């Protein structure tokens, strides 16, 4: 297993391998039934992801990287196997507990931003915070700090449809971090942005997660993020392949 540490803009400064892994996948399998045939998307995955790491899942469209991300985040149901996050086996949780687990421990960033169109930028950010039962005032206070950090301090009361794609994704990043989750999951966060904006957003995401000491898993088909990652997996034919394994296959 190769850990590719980047030299300049590494998001995570050090790794403590003595700590137990934050995410553990055990025999994780996902299959769909299509026209009477079983199509296996993810096949018996076994992997650990350390706390504080930035992990990249690389793969082509339809390779199953988003599915894997959804399974780790508990927004999709595994066909077999387990996903452990810290001490919790989330694949064994019932629907309600899983939702509450997600609410407290997961931050999501989607390709299409998925902001709530009826809430302002500030309200969108404070939503996960408020969903945990915190007061609106506290939520907005915490959100304002993050909104400044993502450079949108002046746009607090703007609705999503008045924000550009890059601005929307910056709000989404702030929203994913506001409730201090254990794990941040990003599904093609730059996939819907132009190159320059994508880069800005990516740097912002890495900087914020690093500063907060958060674990980030990103699904992407963009190889440019690789230099920043602690760990890169290629999702291919239902399997996770590390860089070194890939190099062995295709010397």
């Amino acid at each position, binding site marked *: 297993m190769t850990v590719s540490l980047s030299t300049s803009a590494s998001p995570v400064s050090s790794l403590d391998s003595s700590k137990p892994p934050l995410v553990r996948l055990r025999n994780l399998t996902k299959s769909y039934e299509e026209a009477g045939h079983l199509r296996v998307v993810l096949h018996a995955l076994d992997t650990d992801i350390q706390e504080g790491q930035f992990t990249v899942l690389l793969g082509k469209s339809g390779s199953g990287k*988003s599915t894997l991300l*959804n399974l780790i*985040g*508990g*927004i*999709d149901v595994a066909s077999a196997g387990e996903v452990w996050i810290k001490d919790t086996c989330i694949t064994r949780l019932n*629907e*309600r507990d899983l*939702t*509450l687990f*997600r*609410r*407290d421990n*997961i931050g*999501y960033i*989607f*390709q*299409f931003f*998925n*902001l*709530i*169109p*009826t*809430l302002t930028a500030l*309200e969108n950010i*404070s*939503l*996960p915070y*408020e*969903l*945990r*039962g915190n007061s*609106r005032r506290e*939520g907005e206070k915490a959100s304002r700090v993050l909104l400044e950090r993502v450079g949108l301090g002046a746009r607090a009361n703007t609705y999503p449809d008045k924000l550009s794609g890059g601005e929307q994704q910056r709000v989404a990043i702030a*929203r994913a971090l506001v409730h201090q989750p254990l794990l941040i999951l990003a599904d093609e966060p730059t996939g819907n942005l132009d190159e320059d904006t994508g880069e800005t957003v990516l740097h912002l995401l890495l900087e914020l997660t690093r500063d907060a000491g958060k674990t980030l898993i990103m699904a992407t088909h963009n190889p440019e993020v690789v230099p920043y990652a602690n760990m890169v997996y290629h999702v291919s034919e239902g399997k996770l392949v590390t860089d070194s394994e890939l190099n062995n296959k295709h010397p």
Partner: protein
Amino acid sequence: MPELTDALWRVMLRSIRRRPFQSVMFVAGVALGVAMIVAIDLANGSASRAFGLFTESIAGRATHQITGGPTGLPEDLYVRLRTDLGLRNVAPVVTAYVQALELNDQPLRIFGIDPFAEAPFRGYLDLGSNSNTSTAAVSMFLTQPNTVLMAEQLATQYNLKTGDKITLRYGPQRYAVTIAGLLRPTDAVTQQGLQDLLITDVSTAQELLGMVGHLTAIDLIVPDKAEGDALLAKITAILPPGATIQTATARSTAISGMTDAFNLSLTALSLLALVVGMFLIYNTVTFSVVQRRPILGTLRALGVTRGQIFALIVWEAILLSIVGAVLGLILGIIMGRIAVAVVTQTVSTLYFTVSVRSVSIPILSLIKGVVIGVGAAILAALIPAYEATTTPPSGTLKRSDIESKVRRAIPALTLAGLGIVALSFIALSLTNLVIGFAGLFGIVIGFSLLTPLVTLLLMGAIRPVTGRLMGVLGLMAPRSIIRSLSRTSVAVAALMVAVSVIVGVSAMVGSFRSDVQNWLNNTIRADILISPPSVSANRQEVPIDPSIATQVRNTPGVAMVGVARNVQVQRPGDALPVYLTMIDADISEGHRPFAWAIGDFNTVWDAMGNGSVIVTEAFARHRKIPIESGQSITLMTDRGEHTFPIAGFNIDYGSDQGTVLMRQPIYNSLYDDRMISTVAAFIKPGTDINTVIQALREKFAGVQELTVQSNRDLRSSVLVIFDQTFAITTALNLLATVVAFIGILSALMALQLERTREIGTMRANGMSRSQLFRMTLLETGLMGSIAGIMSLPVGSVLAWVLVYIINVRSFGWTLQLQLRPEFFVQAVAVALIASLLAGIYPALRLGRIQPAIAIRSE
């Protein structure tokens, strides 16, 4: 329900604001449903409350009432009660409806009393020192004959004051009376009860009503328990034959109960509007859920629980339905004022004279409207709200998932629909009317569950045809209906229900009307009918002198004359009066239709000569007499109780309560009454009917006020009354269609908006506005056609149920169902026109959007 956080409330409230069209549709669905319920409730309630207040104010504190036969009670009974039995709490009453010419011919009840016996009974007539009526007025009323007291409010309404003369008409007679004083009751309830009363003394009333020496009733206050029982026994012992004593409330309760079936049928119709409104709500909520799936998915990913999503949707429905319900109340009160007039007229025509001058708005009716409206909205929102909770917490959802779910549910929906229809027919076989209406609703709902299957099959079948006719547009339209089956089928179902109800109700009213027409043609074969002007439209009870028959007979051109006398008599153990009609000749010339009879008409007529009677089918059904041989009926006569064999049950639409027909010799032998009510004349062949009518009118002019009508005029006036009676049904029908129209408009609008992006793409690729217009109208037209086609069998079933089950149970009339082709043409046309109209706005709106904007829209 799980608690919603502030943020979720904000999400919900703002999404209501951001989708004004859907919010307005939702509110409209609830508002119209609630408005219909409230309006009908107010109308029904106002009529029965007016009647209740009126009977209450007339009965006062009386506990019992003695009533007699056609001629009333002999006056000396009152004297005997006072002197022989030494009763103090006893008061005579002479009363009937008259018309007051100065008050626009309005029916008023003349109420003749003995002022000195009144005090214990009716407080407002207390003419003592505490009275609000002036001393001068009291002394005038007590000392001068032909004076009346009336409510001040009524007098003010017609600019009348003390000392003014008013002309009263009772049958052929006119009678002038002077207003001695005005009553100013202090409490509002008495004030309302007094509105229709003209109070006079017994002797004035007797003279006016032709009842000299007789009383209509004697009121009593009888103590409770043993003392009272003993007294009642003593009173009963001295009652003349034909007189009965019953509690004061028994009769009024029974009479107001007569309208129960009528009220229930109106309520059922108003509920139907709500059912159609529920389809509309269901559609709106479903659409809002479908449209917001990505947002709901994001919320789920962020940790919003399924319970919270459910609560979000349901709360949204609650808030909007409260707005709708409040608007519905306002609209309902406005509509209620119109409905009161119509309902009152029908009640007065069919049941008892009642006039309602103010629509009271009981808080209970309003609460009921809001509860039913909000409840229906929540019920309609439950399925989509549940649907919303199944949104997976990610962006991975495909629209086709929902549709394939609906597709998979089709067998279950179809089976459930058939099951509900089967259960409904079982419910209809039970005799309870409320369960009967529940069955009717079941049929409507059961058949609507078949809509997805029918839509799927019909669209699959029509696609090749429309494809060949309209090319690619023709291929797309049926497919897009199938593709959004979860919503298109609901819109189709709503329209189908409304149109089926139109078919069902118009077939029932149409069958009814033609049966009434046939009945009129068969039973009234006399050429000319003579009767006094009457307060009641369908039953002529005002007595006229029998010498009028002789005058008619002696008129040149008249070949034969028949007389009839309509009276009310008592049936032992029956709180309701029995309408008895005496006839001396058969004006139907043997054409009277029978549900059962001992033989042909001559046999029946001969049996009647020997003491048998005919009862109408409606009478038998209301009084639970089996329509078969060997039945008899017991009536109070002036010679005491008498049992009459029933020679036949005839079909008659003259009275909802039904009548008993008796031949003159038998009537004369058992009753002392010798007056008549109507005269029918047959003219000699070759004589001009108008000449005879003119001669009769001249003969009575200035002497007797009598209406002389040709057979044809009478028939058409009966049909005018018939049409008035069913006016409210037609109005309710129309409203249900309006609700359905809004339903399909909202569904189409929603569907088209949802496809904005797709349509933008097509427009960008060269689809012209007119092509878009045609495609949209083809889609909506196809949906309308499915609704129209389905409404043919469903409407026929509804018509069958209404005619053979509901109508028989509500009114006791058997009708012949006639399904005329025009009902069906009308149904399909209504469905098609409604759906095409509903398609125009969405088509225009979509055509106006710039393709670039349409493509960007989410």
